[in-house]
Every structure is written in structure tokens, then in C-alpha cells.
């Protein structure tokens, strides 16, 4: 193999002999990647740097103004002393810790139900998934109708069951309402991913277990869960990032008319992203908003890194650790 005439075939394991081929392949590689790469630079790297620069300045309008100067860590120390900012971080953390387990449990539960061999599989799958494709705006208004104080679906059901039918969910329990909305709206995709994961477990393992005498619960705990741990890890990390980034839904389900970015959003629902944006579009304080954003990025990075590293202890990696 690998003579002078070998054409430019890309295979995983065969080394290139000639330097020119390698050069050409590198060129082709970056060519294929160019649109994304340009986007990466323009939409990710540059903004990150810019945001950092902003956070060190006193930028307060959209245009560069003559008073613009370097202020060092002033924005950061201001953030450090800002109670509202810490509160928003706390609320974001609460959201993450509440939503992600609910997501995983719901998605796995739905996936297992769908995988249990029921009829009309496609129908149920569609119904479970449909909430995902509904646009945010529609979801929000539907949710407002469901949780409305006067005549909302939830209050009606509660009333029929004999409980309190007068709760003002959107005002008094904004986070709970928000969590339910996100769980309802986000269960679909994760469910599909778990279904894929479940299908990856050979049926024979269950059969051997059945013959050995394991009942359904035992099979779930000893076979399904351990073999699903890579998928769970994936969903965990992805879920944490998604939950941390929530900020549109709180705006849309806030009671009353929205004006701008949610002057009417209950503080319990103001996540960090939202808080930063409020500082910018409300106060025009770019520098401060950027500082908040950077603090958030670093915290999120640390959290996800920790979660990911914890995988050594509970995730079953099929290839990396014990491969031949």
C-alpha cells in the first residue's frame, strides 16, 4: 500500500507517506471547515475577547464615547458586591439542580416506556415529543393559560380535586411554573437520545439475566443503568448547560405586559444571563454586563468540568478504559 500513486483517500488508520499528501489533506480539511471556522472566530472567539475587554472598561453606550477608559477590575468588584447578581446566580443554580434531574428522570422514564414494546409506538412518541417543536412564544402563552390564576387549567383541576384553586402561580410560584414549563418542553429530545441508548443494549443480556432469575427491577439496576451511564453523563452535562442558559422563558411567562427585557420578570426567575442583559439593555452598562457574563462563564466551566471528571467513578466507558 501507499505508493506514489495512492490517491487522496481518507481512512482512519493508514498513515500518509508523502508530505505533499499531508499538506493537501490539511488544506482540504481546513477548506471543509472554513465556514464554521470563520463563524467560530467571528461569533465566538472574538466576542469572548471583546467581552473581556469590555468588562475592563466603563463602556456604557453602544457607541464608543470619548470618556471610554480602562477601569481594571472595577466592574468585577462591583459584581462581587452586588446582591442581586448573587441572587441571580443562586436562582440559576437552583434551576440547574432542579431541572436537570427532572429532565433525566422524565426522559429516561419515557424512553423506557416507549421501549417496552407497546403498540402504536409512533403515535406515543410523537405526542411526547411534540412539545419540543412548539415555538417558545406559543409555549409561554399556553403555559400562562394553563397556570392562570382565574380559570387556568391547573387551578381548575386542583379545584375539582378539592385543593386550592386560587393560587397565582405566575406571581407567587414563578420558579415552579418555570421548571414545569422547561421539563414539559424539553423532555422530547432527551427521550430520543435515551431510546437510542437503550437500543444499544443487546437484548441477550436481559435474556441471560431473566434465565438467571433477575426480576425487572434487578435487571434495570444491574444492566440498564450501568450501561446507560455514558448517555446519562452526556445528558447531565448538556442539561446543565441548557438549564444554566435559560432566560427567554422567564421573560415570556412573566405576568403582565413585557416591556423590554422583563422589567416585570419576578426576581426569582431572573437568571444570570437575564440579569446581565438587563444591565445592558436596561441601564446601558456594557462593561458591567460583560463582567457578570465572564464570571458566569467561569463558574459554569468549573461546574461542568467537575461533573465530567466525576465520571471516572460512575460511568462505564466501553472502550477507553478496558479496550484491547
Amino acid at each position, binding site marked *: 500500500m501507499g505508493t506514489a500513486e*495512492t*490517491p487522496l*483517500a*481518507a481512512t*482512519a488508520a493508514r498513515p500518509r507517506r508523502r508530505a505533499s499528501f*499531508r499538506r493537501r*489533506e*490539511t488544506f*482540504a*480539511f*481546513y477548506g*471543509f471547515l472554513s*465556514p*464554521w471556522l*470563520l*463563524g*467560530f472566530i467571528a461569533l465566538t472567539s472574538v466576542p*469572548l475577547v*471583546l*467581552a473581556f475587554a*469590555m468588562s475592563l472598561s466603563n463602556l456604557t453606550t453602544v457607541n464608543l464615547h470619548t470618556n471610554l477608559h480602562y477601569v481594571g477590575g472595577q466592574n468585577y468588584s462591583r459584581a462581587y458586591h452586588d446582591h442581586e447578581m448573587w441572587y441571580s446566580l443562586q436562582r440559576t443554580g437552583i434551576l440547574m439542580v432542579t431541572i436537570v434531574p427532572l429532565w433525566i428522570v422524565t426522559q429516561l422514564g419515557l424512553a423506557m*416506556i416507549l421501549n*417496552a414494546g407497546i403498540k402504536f409506538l*409512533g403515535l406515543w*412518541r*410523537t*405526542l*411526547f*415529543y*411534540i412539545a419540543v*417543536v*412548539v*415555538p*417558545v*412564544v*406559543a409555549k*409561554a*402563552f*399556553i403555559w400562562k*393559560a*394553563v397556570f*392562570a390564576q*382565574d380559570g*387556568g387549567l391547573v387551578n*381548575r383541576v386542583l379545584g375539582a380535586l378539592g385543593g386550592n384553586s386560587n393560587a397565582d402561580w405566575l406571581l407567587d410560584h414563578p420558579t415552579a411554573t418555570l421548571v414545569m414549563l422547561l421539563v414539559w418542553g424539553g423532555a422530547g429530545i432527551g427521550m*430520543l*437520545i435515551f*431510546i437510542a*441508548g437503550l437500543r444499544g443494549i443487546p437484548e441477550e443480556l436481559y435474556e441471560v439475566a431473566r434465565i438467571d432469575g433477575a426480576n425487572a427491577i434487578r435487571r434495570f439496576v444491574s444492566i440498564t443503568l450501568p450501561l446507560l451511564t455514558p*448517555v446519562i453523563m452526556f445528558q447531565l452535562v448538556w442539561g446543565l*448547560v441548557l438549564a444554566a*442558559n435559560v432566560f427567554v422563558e422567564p421573560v*415570556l411567562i412573566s405576568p403582565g405586559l*413585557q416591556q423590554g427585557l422583563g422589567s416585570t420578570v419576578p426576581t426569582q426567575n431572573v437568571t444570570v444571563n437575564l440579569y*446581565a*442583559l438587563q444591565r445592558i439593555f436596561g441601564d446601558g452598562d*456594557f462593561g458591567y454586563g460583560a463582567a457578570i457574563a465572564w464570571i*458566569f*462563564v467561569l463558574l459554569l466551566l468549573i461546574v*461542568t468540568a467537575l461533573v465530567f471528571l466525576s465520571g471516572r467513578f460512575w460511568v462505564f466507558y466501553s472502550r477507553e478504559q478496558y479496550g484491547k
Partner: protein
Amino acid sequence: MTQGAVGVDAVPTRRRRRKRVRPARLATQAILYAFVLAFAAIFVAPIAWGFFNSLRELHQGVSGPVIPRPAHWDNYRYAWSGLFSFSHYLWNTVVLTFIATVPAVLTSAFAGYAFARMRARGRNTLFILMLGTTFIPFSIVFIPLFWVVVNLGMYSTRWPWLIWGVSGSAFLIFLFRQFYASFPVELDDAAAIDGCGHLRTFLHIYLPNSAGPLAVAFVLLGTGWWGEYIYAALLLPDRLLPLGVKVATGYNDPTAQIVLIPATLAGALLFTLPAVLAFLVLQKQLTRGIVTTGLKG
């Protein structure tokens, strides 16, 4: 002496016919279906509720009989043309979705192939970086982006959407990369022997066989952009707004300064319909696509 053969003609001693259903099995089936129905109801109920409430009298909230009587079907006509031209904003939505989705899917497919099948310096680093971009919170990117967009004169235009489109999506790139990595390497070899370089191999072999991931990509990204709210709310003037924003703010009774809930719901449902239809049409491909790409992390 050899034992005789037992074949078709041997007279079988019939054992009693018994019903083949074990009672335990029946119970678990019942519980299973109970769960299925309960969950299905929970998931669909809000949408149904939204629909019922879209038929109320315009100035009502959501109180009144569950199914409104009389049902104001003309709310839908009102949502279409009563306060603003629904079709105008629908067109906006279509344009924005298109220019943000189509290039993104293509870019992501190309990038996915490159990560899966090409060897080059820095490939693995770039891949990790790419995955890392999904971790970056919205605000830290958007804040400077907004500033740049305004200063480059792209505020109040559709240009940002095109840029987002062309730059692809990390999640989609991951999807395509996993999918293409699972192709048999022999396919590449055969193509190479037949004279194809990377471009040809990708265009003639990989892309045509990508129905699953392509469907997933279009549906996921497309429905995401279809319902987009925040970028449009912050970057576009009213005449370019997609329905994602217009529906939220457009149905206000001009005299009383309140939101016309039934009309908003009607508009929202009209707005939702195309996304749901697209999903229904492509759903078989969608589920197959996610299963085959083996998203196991």
C-alpha cells in the same frame, strides 16, 4: 436397533389447549398502558387547553366553560388580519428560518465529514474546541455581538441570520461527525480507487446517504429558528420581525392596553402549525437519525 424417525405423520398426543396469557403479564401490560396514556394526556393537555382558550371572546381571560360556547372561530381570522398582517410576519419567519437553517446544515455536514474522515494537524484540538462552544453562555457572546452588529451597521437587518446560518452549529457538526464516523472505511477506499478526492467522496457518497441526520438537522435547527425570539426581539425593527416575537407583543387591544389572550393563542397556534407539520412529515427519519448516529457521548 435404531430409533424411529419422528416426522409429520407421527400421531401426536394432543395436550389440552390452554390460554396463553399469564395473569402477571396482563397486569404489567395494564400498568404500562396506564402510564402511557397518563403521560400522553399530560403532554398534550396544555396544547389542547391553549386551543380551547383560543376560541373565547377576545377580551376574556381563560375563565368560563372549558369548551367555550359560543366558539369564536373568527378569532383565527382576527389573528390573521385583525391587528396586523399575519402573512407579512409569516413571510419574515420563513425567510429568517431559511437563511439561518439551510447554510447551517450544509456547513455542519461538511465540517462533520472533515472531523470524521480527514487527518490534519490540530483536528482533535479543534474538535474539542468546537464541542466547547456549546458550553458558552448566551450573554457573554451576545453582549459584544450586539455591540459589533450595531457598529457594523447590521442592526435592523437580516444579515446576522445569514452569518449564523453560514457558521453552522456545533451540535449538528457533532451529529454529522458521529454519523460519518460510522461509515465503513472501505467505502472511502473504493471511492479513492475510483478516483475521488475528499470533495467528490463527500458529495457523491456521504451526503447522498445522510438522509437520517439531514432530517434531524433540518427539523431540530429549523424548528428552533422558526420559534426564535430573543435575537429578533433585540435586533430587528417591526417590519422584519418574525412571528416568534410578533405573536408575543402584537395582540394588544389598542384601546384598553391589555393583551388579547384568545387572539394571541390563536396566533400562536397558527404559528406553531407549520413546525408541527414539518416534524410529523420528517419524524420517521428523525427518530431513525438519532438512533443511528448513536449519541452516546
